[in-house]
């Protein structure tokens, strides 16, 4: 299918696939880590300054 060029075409496609999948996996893992970190902080009762200010304003 690739003639004598398989040694160039296959690595080009494999490396591209690895890079694109790697970007997606990295982003999804980052999202999960940040979500769990945020949930942990909220569980401890930590708030952002805007949230804390709003809470104080509402008494």
């Amino acid at each position, binding site marked *: 299918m690739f003639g004598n060029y398989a040694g160039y*075409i296959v690595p080009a496609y494999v490396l591209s696939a690895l890079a694109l999948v790697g970007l997606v996996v990295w*982003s999804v893992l980052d999202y999960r880590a*940040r979500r769990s970190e945020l949930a942990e902080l909220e569980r401890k009762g930590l708030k952002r300054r805007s949230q804390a200010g709003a809470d104080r304003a509402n008494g």
Partner: protein
Amino acid sequence: MSETAIRRASLWDFANPTRYLAIAGPAIPWLAGVTALLLAAGLWMSFRAPADYQQGATVLIMFIHVPAAWLSMFCYGVMSVSALGTLVWRHPLADVSLRAAAPVGAVFTLLALVTGSLWGKPMWGAWWVWDARLTSVLVLFIIYLGLLALARAIEDPATAARALAVVTLVGSVNLPIIKFSVNWWNTLHQPASVMRMDGPKMDPAFLYPLLVMALAYTLFFITLHAMNMRNEILRRRIRSMRMNAAREAGGA
């Protein structure tokens, strides 16, 4: 309130990080689905394309090399607009957008260099030549790496945002150099064959798969950019919560 003022207010409401998260959350799975379908269609069309009469089967590399090269510049264009958003309009999401795009742009640039090298060896007989196109793309990759390092080096977010924006805008001078390098200098790299004033100079058998792959890569970038922006907003919320807790603990 005038109509212009209402429109401006709406645009700024849309820029609110909380509203961004509310819109991006449901949109990301749809964007990802359309991207996957377009990538599948593009690959199917690419592998059905005939071998080129000169380049043989290596023309297959074009369908992933050219979109990666286009996206390396498109991504930097998005970052340059974001940099203007930080410096001129002080848009709350501009720096988030710049930081979210930088690693994706770096990977696309690296892919353009690597796939170009894998295409160059059988066609030119060399993995690398120091011609204007290849060298200017290598400079773009180094600029991306510099921006990523700078983003990590400065801790204060406001200072980091301004520094990143300024360096990004300085680096944007490289974009027209990359685009026109094949016209301004005598390069081994071929001149533009799609984005030309007189229209594409490519047979439809190769042009259509290339355009579908380019669209798929563009949507891939848009999806990943939205995902990374969401991550960056969460990271800033976490930082804000920790800072607030430290401030309250210090004041108690």
